[in-house]
């Protein structure tokens, strides 16, 4: 059976395990209809021209986890930023692991979507924000139809979360190939602050297909920093759909570190609904093998005096492929917009490919918008220069790659996270160089 049919027909079984009287369920039913109409995206869609899910959706995925699996912290410690004091929301095959998590309801709510959807005290927030920021397409409709678990983070007015929050999704492969659909909601009221680190990790050789939706809401003067670490196995496919709505003078940044996986598609969308807003989208992509990563970004400037900054660096070796499709819309109202976009790529192999496509739609006349994209090779004369000073080829290449990605790496605000990302890169490049960044 095709995956689409399997999903649609399993909805009845899904309903047996959720509260069908909740208004959330009406949303699910509508979303299922939409998914039936849209289906999975195909390369015929302009936005999916360079990324095909065909090789993924032909697999027979188990849709609901059959057994609950326990993991020992020591076995998965390396996937955490373990030297960072943080809240943790951890899922194993889509099921919450209280054993590995550390949640709170003290001043802020850092807990589970399933609790937020079912308990009355969260209802005021859910009613206002749930499913309001997301835009519907086949993938998001599918997620909404089956949404029941994920991270729920609520930061009330004038509160800064006292520590960062790590959201980690483990897949054990115990049921064979598995499909996961986490649903996250992050609401930051006026003058609040939060930092989030997210990771998806497949622990087996079995295939995993994750279709994740994250809705973020930033009130006036709110500040959200979101870091995504994508360094999964080559049997993992991730479609990440992240939607951010920002209000006056809020600052939101999303960093995406794409280092692995089979196929990764990042749909990252920012909607500016106020003035004085800053949206920051940064990415470092370092790939080899046959890995494919597609960054599809959208920034909608709807009001005057706002900024957006996009900086994506990519390094592609062997037969890896990268896509950057960055769309900036400046509405007629959005005078004095400053929108910057840059996408720079290095190809280390003549079999690697990059497609970079900036799209600017500007309807206001007093704006500053710039975009630039480059695709090149490592500088041979720089390599020789470094070698002549005693730095071996591998290390010299690594140093040049670090230097290339440096301004994005430098913008990571958590030192422990920066160290970890540098270590992941050093491990990938097979070097151990003793310089600080």
């Amino acid at each position, binding site marked *: 059976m095709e995956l689409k049919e399997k999903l649609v027909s399993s909805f009845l079984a899904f309903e047996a395990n959720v509260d069908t009287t909740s208004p959330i369920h009406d949303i699910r039913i509508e979303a299922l209809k939409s998914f039936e109409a849209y289906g999975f995206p195909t390369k015929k869609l302009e936005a999916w021209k360079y990324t095909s899910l065909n090789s993924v959706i032909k697999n027979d995925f188990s849709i609901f986890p059959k057994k609950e699996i326990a993991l020992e912290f020591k076995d998965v410690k390396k996937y955490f930023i373990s030297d960072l004091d943080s809240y943790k929301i951890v899922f194993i095959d889509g099921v919450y692991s209280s054993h590995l998590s550390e949640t709170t309801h003290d001043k802020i709510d850092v807990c589970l979507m399933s609790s937020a959807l079912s308990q009355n005290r969260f209802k005021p927030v859910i009613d206002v924000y749930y499913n309001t920021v997301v835009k519907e397409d086949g993938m998001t409709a599918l997620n909404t139809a089956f949404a029941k678990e994920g991270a729920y983070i609520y930061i009330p007015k004038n509160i800064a979360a006292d520590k960062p929050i790590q959201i980690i999704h483990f897949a054990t492969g115990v049921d064979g190939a598995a499909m996961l659909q986490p649903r996250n909601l992050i609401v930051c009221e006026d003058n609040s602050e939060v930092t989030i680190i997210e990771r998806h990790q497949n622990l087996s050789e079995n295939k995993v297909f994750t279709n994740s939706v994250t809705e973020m809401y930033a009130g006036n003067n709110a500040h959200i920093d979101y870091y995504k670490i994508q360094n999964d196995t080559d049997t993992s496919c991730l479609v990440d759909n992240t939607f951010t709505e920002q209000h006056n003078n809020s600052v939101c940044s999303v960093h995406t570190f794409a280092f692995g996986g089979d196929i990764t598609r990042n749909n990252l969308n920012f909607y500016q609904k106020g003035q004085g807003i800053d949206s920051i989208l940064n990415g470092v992509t370092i790939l080899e093998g046959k890995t494919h990563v597609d960054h599809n970004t959208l920034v909608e400037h709807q009001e005057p005096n706002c900024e957006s900054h996009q900086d994506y660096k990519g390094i592609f070796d062997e037969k890896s492929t990268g896509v950057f499709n960055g769309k900036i819309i400046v509405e007629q109202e959005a005078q004095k917009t400053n929108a910057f976009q840059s996408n720079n790529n290095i190809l280390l192999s003549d079999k690697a490919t990059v497609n970079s496509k900036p799209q600017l739609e500007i309807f206001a006349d007093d704006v500053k918008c710039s975009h630039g994209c480059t695709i090149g090779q490592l500088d041979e004369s720089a390599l020789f220069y470094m070698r*002549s000073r005693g730095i071996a080829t591998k290390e010299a290449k690594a140093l040049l790659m670090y230097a290339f990605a440096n301004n994005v790496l430098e913008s990571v605000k958590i030192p422990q996270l920066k160290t970890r990302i540098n270590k992941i890169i050093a491990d990938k490049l097979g070097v151990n160089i003793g310089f600080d960044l």
Partner: protein
Amino acid sequence: MLEIKDLHASVEDKEILKGLNLKVNAGEVHAIMGPNGAGKSTLASVVSGKEEYEVTSGAIFLEGEDIEELGAEERAHKGIFLSFQYPVEIPGVSVTNFMKTAINETRKARGQEEMPARDMLKKIKEKSELLEIDSKFLSRSLNEGFSGGEKKRNEIFQMAMLEPKVAILDETDSGLDIDALRIVANGVNKLKSKDNAVIVITHYQRLLEYIVPDFVHVLHDGKIVKSGTKDLALELEEKGYDWIKEELKA
């Protein structure tokens, strides 16, 4: 210390060096002069291990060891240093981090421990003062936006940091005003010792007023055609290279 025997080298099948012989002992300064296209920069590139150049015959010995098969970094570890005619700009790598990496990679290759951070800083301070390099300069990206003089001073600063056995200065005087030339020459002179050697490749005699060579060689058409003392450099300055070409014909 460095011995080059009957060296033939080509680039893209064009032979540039055509049987070059040179022997440099520890404690000596040799100047290599010659007209454009004689093969001066090729010699520098071949000795430092640039792979575009193919050595077709002959050999290069460093302290008796044939280094022909070694990569550029291995030659650096053994004590070869090239001051580039055109130093490469490397955005995103600071002078300090570059130097730390170069020194520690070299120490690693020699089986030594990494240099303690305190010693490194002390050394950087000492050597940058020698070359009159401002400390702000050290945190800037390597050679990026440096003036010609700053690039050359930075080359000699690297030489000071790495303490090579054989330093080849390729047209280090080009693009330098007189003050920068004096600083660079002063730096080189302070680094000279009985245990190392310096090869100065230059078009003009000017630099040799400051870095006084023990021997001067004239490179012409891929070979050393005349050797002498520093007086030869003065003669070349005065009379140009044509008389040597005439002499060769005769």
